């Protein structure tokens, strides 16, 4: 699908938890709160991946969740972006040596933007969204 101008106006976000401790979830919810107010940019949380443009993935991928995460990623319509929130999804974080994990998220899904932190501050998550927007603009210019 072609990138249309509506991507500059709104990015609908679906959040996927692959075994996280919920710290990153709380920070994502804090980002949505009125203090940082991303809804003025058109960013809102949706309840189904089929409505989403961006997939926010948190947590290291546990073995039980790997297939489900892959399935949810495939259900997001194109064009899509995947943002990995937190260090658990990037290098394992505190779970850097674990018996029950299927690796960092980029072993399971292709990731576009990484937001490190344990948990990352809302400012860092917003900065990550800005990077995602810049990436979308580069993709749109390349089309």
């Amino acid at each position, binding site marked *: 699908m072609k990138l249309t101008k509506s991507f500059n106006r709104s990015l609908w976000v679906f959040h996927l938890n692959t075994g996280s401790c919920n710290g990153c979830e709380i920070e994502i919810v804090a980002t949505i709160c009125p203090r940082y107010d991303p809804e003025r*940019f058109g960013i809102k949380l949706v309840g189904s991946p089929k409505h989403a443009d961006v997939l926010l993935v948190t947590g*290291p991928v*546990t*073995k*039980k969740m790997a297939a489900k995460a892959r399935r949810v990623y495939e259900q997001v319509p194109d064009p899509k972006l995947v943002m990995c929130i937190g260090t658990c999804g990037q*290098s*394992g974080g505190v*779970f*850097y*040596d*674990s*018996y*029950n*994990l299927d*690796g*960092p998220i*980029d*072993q399971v899904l292709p990731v576009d933007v990484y937001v490190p932190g344990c948990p990352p*501050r809302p*400012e*860092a998550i*917003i*900065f990550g*969204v*800005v990077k995602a927007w810049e990436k979308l603009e580069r993709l749109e210019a390349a089309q």
Partner: protein
Amino acid sequence: MNETPHRTPQEIVDLYKAEFGAGIHDARITERGEGVQKTKGYNIWIRLDRNLLKPAIKKLMDIRFPHLAVIAGNDLGTEIELLYIFSVFYGTKFGEYMVTIGIRLPKTDLTVPTITDLIPGALISEREKQEFFGITVTGIPDGRRLFLPDDFPQGVYPWRKDETGIKPEMVRELWAIDRPKDRPVPPVPEKPVPEKKPVEEVPAAEGKEKKTGGAPE
């Protein structure tokens, strides 16, 4: 409402000692100050014989119906200690205590009766202890695996510290996957911090803030 009377922690310990007497190995009250005013909060620890578990919980239900927080477990070498962590007197101002009832199971006989007939919500925590410690909870209504995947090998109990625990070949090093080879393996010794003059500190901190918070504010 027919509420039972509120008890102080010492009264609860005295009630337990009066009823169980010899079966109690250890009963203590730890005190801590909470908040700015340092209001007193109490934790009551009672360690008993393993066959006194259910009578002790029934007694706690007579004092006031408790809230089971979690069943915690610990591997002590030859024994596995199970701590049933409850909180009583929820709703009373500054009057809620945590009561922990601990029992020890020798590794030769790892059975414990289920408490789901008294507190149905204990099922989740009992299933967790069953799969992670390898204890047998007799009479459990649903003994399936809870958190571990179904193809996890039987006989491997992740939270144990002996030979049935996780073997090194089962551990997967996530940090080393796709890691560039020219970096030193952590832990890396810290670089010596250069001395900062106090005048330069303020603009340096501001510069850092601008970089991380540069999103549309």
